[in-house]
């Protein structure tokens, strides 16, 4: 063991987890070593085929060892493989591990296992690492043990297979013997039956028993003298021995083959889930999409109920529940809530099978990237704890989703910044336009008032009247502009600020007409209304403003004496309002721009008071905010038609 202080500045220390009691000692030692080196502790569990056969007691111990490691600040990792030292060495290489803390244990038992100790072999695989070997006397490494009463049903099917293949093999043996085939063929039949039993049953005991029984049966039934355990042939004892040895070997090989196949299938499935998650996450953009990917992948992987608490601005939102088949919506006790909050606040696992709120039904993982928490995922445990590799895949899927959430958040922030910049640009334009365009009427008001004050007496009545009228007109224009700016600022504050109520369209039109009654006097107004009551869901103030702006537009562009039509009608499930005039109309090339902000037809640089070009732009944004559309068309034979369409609202009467 060599220690090089300089290399250990950022030490990554690996501790190997097992189900042995002494592992606790190893973990504590590893934690102390890590603290001494100011390093990071990684706890690794190698899931071997034997894991599937582990007793409940061992599993419980393994879990408590894992919890201990986590509590001491370790990151949990699981790898799957048959060759434990090789897996540890590979993991150490890939994860840039500098030191390994391991208990000195006996070799894992087994017929065809190597004799060298695990530590020795590990050192051969990864000779460059520092090793801390914690002596481990008198404790036992877990070995595959019988599961008492683990699965009665399995026992029955296994026994049935056993008996059936025994009967079939013996029957074939009798057939061969009757046909006069040699003993070798009968032995082969028994070995074939052994293969079947090894592969189709779950425990190696069946194969072992089969090996012994088949030899005995062969001796009893097929060697002369028949139906005795005595055999005349001199070579038979050797035959029996070889047959027994072959049977044991075959059964061991077959069982390992089966276990490996099962394990790699499981690992492949998990890997495919992780890859699939990655693939889907690249497509998911919004938080909702990412969470739904998370939910569907975890359901696929674990087949357990899930509960997801999304977090917004560091506060947990309402949970979304994804029940597995046959599971019920969980009753959220106080303890569950506390576990969720703890996991959220401490960025760690909490709930069932951990040491924090272990009485809960769910195991909670915090979705986080660095210090940003994006929520909590709960997995139903229901008394069947997740195994080590499930936990590891779960952690990696949750990690992937947290990263995706982080990316989504970054993208959103970027977008918001861009919107902000765009708003800033609009605001600057608006300020420029306002300061220019408001000055004009103000100058006129001040000038006219000034003249009247200074020399009102010397002016004749007609001139005075003209000045008074100009002051009034300019003030009125300013009033309209202020109304529009106020509406625009309300619109800018977002949809939430709209006071949506059910309004009668005709009421709002009447209000707008009343508001403009003075300006409308020189025009002929033609209103037609639908016989039905046309309701819309709207912010009344803003919609009245839309009608005012459209009428104002008609008044501005159509010469006095023209006719203005206002029609309301129902079309499909919509309410249509049409405001038309028989003025000069709008040239086609201007129709595309007429709703643009600051667009004003005519001389754009002159001081003519045609408006700021915000009236129609405001109409469009108000109508859009009400889920409607606004269009401009030609009026036959001349003039312009503005038409806006809003979804019709139905009213349920309370009589």
């Amino acid at each position, binding site marked *: 063991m060599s220690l090089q202080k300089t290399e250990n500045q950022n030490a990554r220390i690996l501790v190997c987890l097992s189900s042995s009691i002494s592992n606790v000692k190893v973990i504590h030692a590893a934690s102390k070593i890590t603290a001494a080196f100011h390093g990071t502790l990684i706890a690794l569990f190698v899931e071997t085929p034997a894991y599937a056969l582990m007793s409940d007691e061992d599993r419980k111990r393994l879990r408590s060892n894992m919890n201990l490691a986590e509590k001491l600040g370790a990151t949990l990792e699981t790898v799957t493989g048959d060759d434990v030292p090789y897996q540890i060495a590979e993991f150490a290489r890939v994860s840039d591990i500098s030191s390994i803390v391991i208990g000195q244990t006996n070799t894992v038992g087994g017929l065809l296992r190597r004799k060298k100790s695990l530590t020795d072999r590990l050192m051969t695989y990864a000779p460059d690492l520092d090793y801390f070997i914690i002596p481990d006397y008198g404790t036992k490494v877990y070995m595959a043990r019988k599961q008492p009463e683990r699965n009665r049903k399995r026992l029955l099917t296994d026994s049935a297979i056993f008996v059936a293949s025994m009967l079939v093999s013996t029957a074939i043996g009798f057939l061969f013997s009757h046909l006069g085939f040699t003993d070798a063929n009968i032995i082969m039949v028994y070995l074939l039956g052994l293969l079947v039993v090894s592969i189709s049953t779950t425990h190696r005991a069946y194969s072992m028993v089969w090996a012994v029984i088949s030899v005995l049966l062969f001796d009893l039934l097929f060697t002369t003298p028949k139906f005795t355990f005595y055999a005349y042939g001199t070579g038979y004892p050797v035959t029996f021995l070889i047959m027994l040895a072959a049977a044991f070997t075959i059964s061991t090989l077959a069982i390992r083959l089966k276990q490996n196949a099962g394990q790699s299938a499981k690992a492949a499935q998990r890997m495919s889930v992780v890859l699939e998650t990655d693939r889907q996450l690249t497509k998911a953009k919004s938080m909702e999409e990412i969470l739904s990917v998370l939910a569907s992948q975890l359901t696929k992987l674990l087949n357990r109920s899930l509960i997801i608490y999304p977090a917004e601005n560091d506060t947990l939102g309402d949970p979304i529940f994804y029940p597995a088949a046959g599971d019920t919506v969980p009753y959220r006790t106080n303890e569950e809530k506390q576990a969720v909050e703890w996991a959220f606040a401490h960025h760690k696992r909490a709930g069932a099978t951990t040491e924090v709120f272990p009485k809960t039904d769910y195991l909670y993982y915090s979705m986080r990237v660095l210090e940003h928490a994006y929520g909590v995922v709960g997995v139903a445990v229901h008394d069947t704890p997740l195994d080590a590799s499930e936990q590891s895949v779960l952690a990696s899927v949750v990690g992937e989703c947290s990263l995706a959430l982080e990316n989504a958040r970054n993208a959103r922030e970027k977008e918001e910044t861009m919107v902000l910049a765009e708003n800033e640009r609009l605001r600057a334009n608006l300020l420029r336009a306002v300061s220019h365009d408001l000055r004009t009427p103000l100058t006129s008001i001040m000038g006219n008032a000034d003249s009247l004050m200074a020399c009102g007496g010397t002016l004749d009545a007609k001139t005075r009247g003209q000045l008074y009228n100009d002051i009034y007109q300019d*003030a009125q224009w300013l*009033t309209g502009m202020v*109304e529009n700016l*106020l509406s625009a600022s309300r619109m800018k504050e977002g949809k939430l600020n709209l*006071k949506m*109520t*059910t*309004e*009668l369209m005709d*009421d*709002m039109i*009447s*209000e707008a007409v009343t508001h403009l009654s003075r300006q409308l006097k020189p025009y002929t107004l033609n209103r037609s209304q639908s016989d039905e*009551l046309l*309701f819309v869901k709207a912010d*009344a*103030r803003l919609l*009245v403003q839309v009608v005012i702006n459209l009428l104002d537009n008609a008044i501005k562009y159509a010469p006095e004496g023209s006719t203005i039509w206002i029609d309301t009608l129902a079309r499909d499930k919509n309410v249509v309002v049409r405001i038309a005039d028989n003025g000069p109309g709008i040239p086609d090339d201007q129709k595309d721009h007429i709703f643009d902000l600051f667009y004003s037809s005519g001389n754009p640089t002159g001081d003519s008071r045609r408006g700021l070009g915000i009236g129609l732009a405001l109409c469009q944004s108000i109508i859009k905010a009400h889920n409607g559309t606004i269009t401009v068309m030609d009026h036959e034979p001349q003039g312009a038609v503005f038409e806006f369409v809003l979804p019709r*609202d139905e*009213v*349920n*009467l*309370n*009589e």
Partner: protein
Amino acid sequence: MNKPLILIVEDDAPIRNLISVTLEAHEYRHITAGNAGAAIMEATSHNPDIMLLDLGLPDMDGVEVIRKIRSWSNMPIIVISARSDDADKIEALDAGADDYLTKPFSVDELLARLRVTIRRLNQTKADNPDSPVFMNGSLKIDFASGCAYVSGEELHLTPIEYKLLCVLARNCGKVLTHKYITQQIWGASWENNVASLRVFMATLRKKLEVSPDASMLIQTHVGIGYRMLRIMDN
């Protein structure tokens, strides 16, 4: 009553001046107050007939002034609000104000509101509050029999429409908020039933259309409520 006394409560001197000059030009008697304290003092000492009240006063919220005045007087109060938000007008109306004006307002608008209010004052004085019959232009409501007539023709109203007409008639000349009307018709639990109110109001109006003057009886105040106008008896 020929010359009503009007109390102008407005902290902004040019506007106070504008209103005074307008009232003088139309031969109304008036007194002025620049803040809420002075307003309440003037109101108690001179007992004016009508109050024009600016909601944005420096020393007290205008709505608070209305509540104080309403604790002892029924004088019509017309509020003047610079805020374009409807909420404060609604609050003032619910606190007992009769009508409202939004700044900027024209002189014509101000005079029109005053005429409406004075007409109502005169009529209220002439009306016998216990009278079983309500008359307004061509509209006649016989409370005792629960029937309404326009130009002598009986209107076929649903119970809700009749109730609605009665609520408006009993508060003739006052702007009633949606909240007030729905409470009167459906009770407090149906405060948000404005959509239904609009439907019944629309059908009621349609039935009143048989006479041209009756169709103008009910005014809509978008976002605020409704008012029944008092039609001058010739």
